[in-house]
């Protein structure tokens, strides 16, 4: 028994905790560093024994999946160690997320930037799907961005394996604004298409700089969706009227995407429309999306180091209120709020992310 504890203690010594940068209902997040190399990390300390059913499911899922996945576009779980009553996840430190980038009005997006972000999202997602994992909580808030511009999927608290045939899954997943209509209609047997719909919403949001389908309630969300994309017909989406919670919310005509996304190219709109296909079986897959002509057309996707990043904020603590979704893009589905915990802003140690600074790092030798 003590052998296990000893091993744990040894692991624990490899990581040093610094300042607290966030707190939620069941976890506290610290900034930390690797003792040997000094590499910055985020240490998520999960209190165990809080719930009557023991170890929290979200915690289990995060650990389970992050432990298996290693990919440049997925957040890396560097280590796990535990003490008597705490589970500590050592995650790589990522200072910002896509939501902050979208919200920061001083940043200008090139079409090449959007292309790069979406490509990275699809790559991370394709890898999840390749490992038979559905993420089920994609939203800009959960797409973290590293210092060198790489986008990474995070927060696997709602993820799960593909279901075996005949096994039901819950339809109460994914934050409302990014949730596909089949989930609103209560379907219990779905697949990877649900994640693709979320990516489509994120794609649109990158272009509009505001959430594409912001509904205020489940019903309103359906209405908003159908108003934007037209009510699905039986021909388009066979069988959808038979879904458990099917409800008719009105007949809206399909307006062409071009009317709203005036600056987008034809390829771009084509890919976007494929993400928003109503019939989940016909919705594009992550792998096919990566092979879509949109990505091969000019302009090339921006190199990650050149992607815009928001200026550092001064007080990270007020961002981290786990109970109140301050930046609130719609209510989250989870019982446990702390997805804010993923936003690991550093404690403002005087590092200003001005563009000039960025230049310094990337220009190793002036031409």
């Amino acid at each position, binding site marked *: 028994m003590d052998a296990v504890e000893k091993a744990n203690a040894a692991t624990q010594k490899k990581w040093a905790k610094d300042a607290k940068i966030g707190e939620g209902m069941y976890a506290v997040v610290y900034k930390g560093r690797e003792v040997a190399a000094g590499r910055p990390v985020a240490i998520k300390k999960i209190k165990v024994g809080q719930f009557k059913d023991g170890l929290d499911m979200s915690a289990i899922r995060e650990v389970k999946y992050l432990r298996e996945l290693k990919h440049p576009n997925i957040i890396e779980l560097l280590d796990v160690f535990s003490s008597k009553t705490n589970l500590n996840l050592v995650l790589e430190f990522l200072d910002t997320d896509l939501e902050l980038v979208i919200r920061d009005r001083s940043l200008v997006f090139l079409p090449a930037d959007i292309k790069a972000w979406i490509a990275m999202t699809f790559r991370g997602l394709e890898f999840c799907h390749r490992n038979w994992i559905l993420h089920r909580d994609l939203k800009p808030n959960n797409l973290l961005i590293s210092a060198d511009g790489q986008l990474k999927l995070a927060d696997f608290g709602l993820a799960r394996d593909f279901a*075996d045939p005949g096994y039901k899954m819950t339809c109460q997943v994914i934050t409302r604004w990014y949730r596909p209509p089949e989930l609103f209609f209560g379907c219990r047997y779905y697949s990877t298409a649900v994640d693709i719909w979320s990516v489509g919403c994120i794609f649109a949001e990158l272009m509009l700089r505001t959430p594409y389908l912001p509904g205020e309630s489940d019903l309103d969300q359906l209405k908003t969706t159908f108003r934007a994309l037209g009510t699905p017909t039986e021909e388009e989406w066979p069988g959808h009227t038979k879904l458990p919670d099917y409800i008719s919310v009105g007949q809206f005509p399909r307006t062409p995407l071009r009317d709203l996304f005036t600056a987008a190219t034809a390829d771009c709109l084509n890919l976007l429309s494929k993400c928003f296909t109503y019939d989940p079986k016909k919705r594009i897959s992550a792998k096919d999306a990566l092979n879509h002509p949109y990505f091969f057309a000019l302009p090339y996707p921006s190199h990650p180091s050149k992607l815009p990043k928001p200026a550092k904020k001064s007080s990270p603590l007020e961002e981290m209120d786990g109970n109140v979704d301050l930046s609130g893009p719609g209510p989250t589905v989870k019982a446990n709020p702390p997805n804010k915990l993923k936003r690991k802003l550093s404690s403002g140690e005087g590092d200003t992310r001005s563009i000039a600074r960025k230049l310094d790092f990337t220009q190793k030798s002036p031409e």
Partner: protein
Amino acid sequence: MISTTETETPGFSQKIPLYEGSTQFRHWRYSPEQLARTRSAMNAAAVQAIKDAFEADLPGSSSDVSFLSADEEILLVKLYAGKVSQLCGHFRFPEEVEATAVTYLKRFYLKNTVMDYHPKNVMLTALFIATKTTNHPISLEAYANHIPKTLPSDVLDLEFLVAQSLGFDFAVWHAHRALWGIWLDIQNLPDIRMDELRQAYDVALKHVRASRLTDAELIYTPSQIALACLSLASPSLAAAWARSQHNSRSPTPPSPPTPMPPSESAVLDIIEPIASMITTSGVLPDVEAVREVDRRLRLCKNPEKVVGSNAHKRKQEEKEHKAAEKRARKAERIRKAMEDGDPFGTSLHEQDLDDDDDDDED
């Protein structure tokens, strides 16, 4: 038929196969010798520790005690692994849950001894955790209520420990799914008689279940175990499929340790020992033998882990003492800070003002 295609496709060999990224491959893969060594080492250490505990309690008492050997531990674990199956049937848990729970049980006892933790409760806890990690969760109450003589606390107390002992490696690749895959892929072969295949599959599945009682999954990959089970059911089908595997488009990039390219017979060579392992050890142990072991276990249990014993009380006191010391130290620090005039004390990270920071200990 040695193929040299790794040189033809150099880029290929740089790719890592998916299985080799899993925790199952990285952390829970042993050679038979390693298994034996691990177990005996652990057993010896445990015996020593318990002896000391006995001695501390009552000098001289340890010589009377007959401790369990590593083999006897295995026996007990096997028995309870079998019980998992019964419980799962009772609760109607899917096969995935059952397989995962058995894996957790076996892995737990590679890191712990039965003399510290009796398999009965560990088994219940492992099963409970398995329901959570495989997305078939059940409420603790519902679970405990349906198991006779079991309180929720019996299950919950060990949960963290079990998870910890597993290294939080919750994802498991199972042989029964691999068998399903073989079933599907065999249908691609020409001249397959479906009734023959179906029969073979049913028998093979039984063998997969038997394999769970062995160490197979700790040494071999799920695909190998599945193929072995199929070979026990229908050697011809297994051989046919193995042959087709070898002939398929491009060969597997060789995994790091072995430079030799795989050949068809190599695969069959690998699965042969698995087959024999299943037939010899894939059976439940003799009831009488187990009963004997269980009886002796009651006597040689580690007193420190038994609530109510002197040794346990003493350990608790020790813990309390440490905790109290720590609290005092913390209070002292805060008091000093207040005296210094700065209520917030020195910079945040010099003071670790967490509430439950017993991380620093141990």
